[in-house]
């Protein structure tokens, strides 16, 4: 089974040379730490920066340079700043190659819910609805089940949707899955996790075709 760092490490392998990548808050943010150093990638943050670098050294924080998680950041050579409409123009116009975000639920048709629990938690969708409606390459990073052990990979989302039929791939603590017209196709198992474990933790339609390899991290 993977921890959050393990999920981030596995997703980092999906980041290819020449990609512009938007990372959501939480596990997705960690992905930046594990991208191969021999490839060229630029991270976009929807609040208006392309070419995000690591956190600043202590004492170098600048209140005017933050990421979408409101954390102080730095920029790398080649970086640019822009306004919010330009930023979402990059996203809506499909100029961003890969979007990685967290989710509360994903359905086997690619629907995603990640912004609201009616009556309990309403933080808002931020840029998530814009991202999932336009991005062609969306990977979800999340735990396979919630704290109560209930599957987050469902036949149908129970929470208010963020977007419909948009998720392409999911990396959880148990597995890598692809969303296909027939449902979740199991691609890889996490180390020490059996196909049976994944079946038990998946409520949505799960397709298992032949031997399922263990993830390489």
């Amino acid at each position, binding site marked *: 089974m993977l921890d959050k760092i393990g999920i981030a490490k596995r997703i980092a392998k999906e980041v290819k040379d020449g990609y512009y990548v938007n990372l959501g808050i939480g596990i997705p943010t960690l992905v930046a730490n594990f991208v191969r150093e021999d490839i060229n990638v630029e991270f976009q*943050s*929807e*609040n*208006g*920066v392309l070419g995000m670098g*690591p*956190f*600043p*050294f*202590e*004492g*170098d*924080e*600048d*209140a*005017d*340079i*933050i*990421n*979408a*998680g*409101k*954390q*102080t*950041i730095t920029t790398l050579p080649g970086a640019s*700043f*822009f*306004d*919010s*409409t330009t*930023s*979402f123009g990059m*996203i*809506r116009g499909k100029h961003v190659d890969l979007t990685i975000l967290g989710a509360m639920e994903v359905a086997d048709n690619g*629907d995603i819910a990640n912004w609201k629990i009616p*009556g309990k938690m*309403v*933080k*808002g*969708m*931020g*840029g*998530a*609805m*814009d991202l999932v*409606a*336009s991005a062609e390459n969306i990977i979800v990073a999340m735990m396979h089940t919630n704290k109560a052990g209930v599957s987050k990979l469902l036949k149908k989302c129970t929470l*208010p*949707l*963020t*977007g*419909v039929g948009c998720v392409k791939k999911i990396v959880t603590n148990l597995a890598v899955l692809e969303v296909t017209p027939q449902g979740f196709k199991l691609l890889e198992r996490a180390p020490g996790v059996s196909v049976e474990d994944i079946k038990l933790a998946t409520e949505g339609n799960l397709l298992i075709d032949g031997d399922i390899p263990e993830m390489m991290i």
Partner: protein
Amino acid sequence: MIKKTVHNVEAALEGVQDGMTFMLGGFGLCGIPENAIAELVRLGITNITCISNNAGVDDFGLGLLLQHHQIKKMISSYVGENDEFERQMLSGELEVELTPQGTLAEKCRAAQAGFPAFYTPAGYGTEVAEGKEVREFNGKMHVLEYAYEADFSFVKAWKGDEAGNLIFKGTARNFNPSMCGAARITVAEVEELLPAGSLDPNEIHIPGIFVQRIFQGEHFEKRIEQRTTRTRN
């Protein structure tokens, strides 16, 4: 040169009234019009509608207006990080219209640029699209969204000149440029107000035509919401 300078924040906010709709720039606490917000608190006007991506934190930014129950309605994309906001929203004291971030930005820009409405794919199939017109373009469904209408836009820039030209810094730019000229009156507060001719026309982000009043803010706290650093070595 058409001069846009006013002497202070009091003059800049002349005409604000109970029940008005305001646009306020900023993302989190980054690039917010701190001086205008402080003056709105001092004036004590109530029943206002605020169009702003976020709602500040409990004791800073728009959180100050929430604390004093001056806001009737918030139009935002993300309202986490603010307990008082969540309390007022869940208790029904505060009306909240959550809007996808890119849509919110574009509804401001549409108002600035004279578009009454536009289609976007964001929110299709979700509760955000309920009751809205939808239309298919190139095999994909889109939602019709209308330009905002606001009485005042309060924006914050890094440098400005007497003619109202603005230059923003870093990610403090965010929603500020799209809100300029998107309300009946745009008020810009800047860290440094310079004589006309001091700024290179090639470097201007927002031309003065979109700004009615400009002043140098007396105090900018520029609070950091999430101070994240790495250690040297």
